[in-house]
């Protein structure tokens, strides 16, 4: 008899059976709270859509964009959401390759978040266009006018980077879900669900051959997705760094943005999982250990971001370049000092608390801290974009920018849009990976326990314990 018969990460889960029951239960008839939440979200989304309509009808002048500050809250929010999208792939793919033993129950939710965050981010360049109906100018489509996008522009690289990321992360998300969809298919009695899951599960039966191909495909996709974690936000950072705007043109931007993205993404995972855990009663699935591990990663990435801040300021001083020095001085003590100090406080200051184990293992504390981080990371992009543009090389051009109500409404609407997808996802697809969770639970037969009978879709897994 071995000494351990419980999973070290999920000590509260007793059997395979329980996993199927608990996870599939999430998709059953929702309570009233769910619909109230949905209605609230739809109302905010409505506000966002209304604001966008106003901008479309009355023109881009409804935003606060002015002459030197051609990029404002829209691009800030775009970068913010692309950043949020990073933690999902990190948790699902990178931690898989690193054989981290704590990703199983949270990665599905994080991955869903990734896909929805990219969907949200993708809206903003289009909103920012002002004339969204000509967004296809961004795509290299053959056309009779002989016009092509500028392939040397980082903005176009961005189109490719973000759409590649969306494609790969969505594929990875979907492939990983197939065995679980099959389990849902076998369990459900609702006709439309049965039909939907039958189509989505691609006839999965759980044979050894299917598992073999599945595992291999999953591993290859993980290997493919891992460099994307680095590349996407690097390309986003080059939207700025390639230009010679002071405060933008700096070599550290790519790794700095990637670290910031993972930082904000993990913070968002915690912000989301804390209420979900509470509402859906998933305490045994999202354990303190998960939160502590994520908190540690947040701490590490916060230190990287802090390093980047410090280096930027040092280098601005060391450069002895007047515009460079001015921009950084202006950030700290100029018109936007409040935004800069919010950024520094939230991203470099507040996470210092995570050095303490007591804080890392306190869910209310983590919830509050991660909200600060979310705010701080939005302001980071705001500071980078606005302060640099507002006071570039020539003082006679200087002009400050103020976001308008339209921009703020669309920002709020984007949160609603993101949460809407997430809420729908929670009800339609298995939000915790059933199959992978079982991999880290003690095998029932091996430990002489009452053999738990799982749903048909994972029949072969039990067989594996027998061999």
């Amino acid at each position, binding site marked *: 008899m*071995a000494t351990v018969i419980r999973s070290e990460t999920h000590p509260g889960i007793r059997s395979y059976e329980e996993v199927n029951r608990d996870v599939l239960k999430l998709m059953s008839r929702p309570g009233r709270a769910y619909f109230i939440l949905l209605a609230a979200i739809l109302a905010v989304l409505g506000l966002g859509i209304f604001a966008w309509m106003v901008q479309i009808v009355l023109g881009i002048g409804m935003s606060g964009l002015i002459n030197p500050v051609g990029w404002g809250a829209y691009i800030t929010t775009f970068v913010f959401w692309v950043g949020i999208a990073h933690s999902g792939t990190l948790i699902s793919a990178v931690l898989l390759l690193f054989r981290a*033993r704590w990703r199983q129950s949270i990665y599905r939710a994080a991955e869903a978040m990734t896909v929805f965050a990219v969907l949200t981010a993708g809206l903003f360049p289009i909103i920012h266009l002002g004339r969204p109906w000509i967004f296809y100018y961004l795509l290299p489509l053959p056309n009779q006018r002989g016009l092509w996008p500028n392939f040397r522009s980082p903005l176009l690289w961005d189109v490719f980077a973000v759409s590649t990321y969306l494609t790969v992360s969505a594929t990875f998300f979907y492939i990983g879900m197939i065995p679980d969809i099959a389990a849902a298919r076998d369990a459900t009695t609702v006709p439309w669900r049965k039909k939907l899951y039958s189509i989505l599960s691609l006839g999965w039966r759980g044979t050894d051959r299917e598992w073999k191909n599945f595992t291999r495909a999953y591993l290859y996709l993980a290997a493919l997705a891992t460099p994307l974690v680095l590349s996407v936000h690097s390309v986003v950072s*080059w939207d700025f760094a*390639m230009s010679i705007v002071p405060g933008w043109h*700096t070599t550290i931007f790519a*790794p700095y943005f990637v670290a910031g993205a993972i930082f904000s993404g993990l913070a968002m995972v915690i912000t989301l999982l804390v209420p979900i855990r509470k509402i859906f009663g998933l305490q045994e699935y999202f354990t303190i250990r998960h939160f502590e591990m994520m908190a540690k990663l947040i701490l590490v990435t916060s230190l990287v971001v802090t390093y980047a801040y410090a*280096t930027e300021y040092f*280098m601005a001083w*060391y450069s*002895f370049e007047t515009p460079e020095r001015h921009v950084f001085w202006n950030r700290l003590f100029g018109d936007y000092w409040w935004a800069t100090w919010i950024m520094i406080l939230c991203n470099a200051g507040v996470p210092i608390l995570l050095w303490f184990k007591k804080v890392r293992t306190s869910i209310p504390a983590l919830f509050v801290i991660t909200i600060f981080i979310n705010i701080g990371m939005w302001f980071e992009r705001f500071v980078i974009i606005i302060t640099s543009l507002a006071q570039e090389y020539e003082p006679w051009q200087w002009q400050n920018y103020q976001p308008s109500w339209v921009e703020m409404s669309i920002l709020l609407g984007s949160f609603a849009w993101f949460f809407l997808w997430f809420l729908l996802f929670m009800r339609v697809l298995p939000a915790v990976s059933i199959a992978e969770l079982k991999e880290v639970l003690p095998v029932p037969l091996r430990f002489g326990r009452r053999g738990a009978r799982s749903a048909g879709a994972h029949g072969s897994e039990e067989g594996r314990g027998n061999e």
Partner: protein
Amino acid sequence: MAHDNFAAYRLPLVRLERTPAAARTAIIALLVVGVIGFVASVLTDPTRAWRAYLYNWLFFTSIAQGAIIFSAATIMARGVWARGIRRIAQSTMGFLPIAFVLLIPIFFVGGKVFPWVEHPVPGKDVWLNIPFLAVRSLVLLGILFYLSSRFVYWSLRPDAGALRDRVPDRLRGVYDRLTRNWQGQAVEEERAERNLSRLGPALALVYAVAFSFVAWDYVMSLEPHWFSTLIGPYFFMGAFLGGIALTALTAVICRGTLGLEKALVPPQFHDLGKMTFGFCVFWAYMFWSQYIVIWYGQLPWEQAFLIHRLSKPYGPFALFVFLGLFVIPFFGLLGVKPKKTPSILATFAALILFALWIERYVLVYPSLYLPDTGAVTIGWQEIVTALPFAGLLLMSMVNFATRFPILQQWIPSADKEILLTSGEPVEAVAGD
């Protein structure tokens, strides 16, 4: 250990009984030839000799410290796969105090090495002056090396206690010092684990800061008008890669000479290969992130740095660095088999170390010997200067292996949890 559930996971306490004759000969030859060569080099062209000295110091300090950080990283990340190689990575510890001492001469010959001594940059001389440089370098590296030594000490201590009564007399004093105030195996393991978990993050932080300063002061300042925010991370991640490569190479050598075939198994080399591969790619990412921004920006004072390195005669060296640190290891180590085969992995590790040696040359020389006014390629001066450094590093590592067990036997309790459920191979059989 009657009721030891982890007996099967415990690695044997292997120690090199005496310095192998070949190693002794190699060390003596390296030191003698190297010192004579360096003296000759100083007598013929002191400027060049000290510049060669600087870049060799950068390279050897980088890989020695990088290996320690690698071992700390696997301990902090609870990488139980690496439990057979952590101690091997720590064997470079002895070189760090030597590196500390070897840095000091550079301050006395600063005028030959740093362009800003002869032509001070107005304003920047607040930062770029020898006394301040010496103070900040020695303080930061002092803290870094001290923390490294504490880290190695605490990871060694529980094993030293287990081995204390069986070491030969010549090591008695060392082991008594290592196990001062011994409180019993179980308590000591707990203490060690607690101390390591505190020292690890501190060490990593100080490493990033101290090596950033090294990069700013000994690479970036050589072109006083050039600046790049990424040079620090680029430099210390390169050092980290060097540390991994050095560890891989040493692990393969130890496996053969110490008969560790049971303790260091192919799955571990597979993982070590993955780390090597991964950090080669990461090096390329760092390189590219810096390169593309400067290239695209086309600012004259930034581009000078690249142009110096891409024009003749430095271009081929820079190209070789890119091939040796990224392209060749990328394709070579892509498959599973090369990673699992110790000899192939060691070959790539050696290539990476060599390419990194060239890389540190490319970082230093083109700034000092501008391509259009008398470039200097690698000649006998550069090679003979590398020899004593290599000899001292080898000596430190062999010394470590003759004193201390080269495999870590004690298992931190956090690792035990993982070992039980991770399916890590249990092929290592305890020797005692």
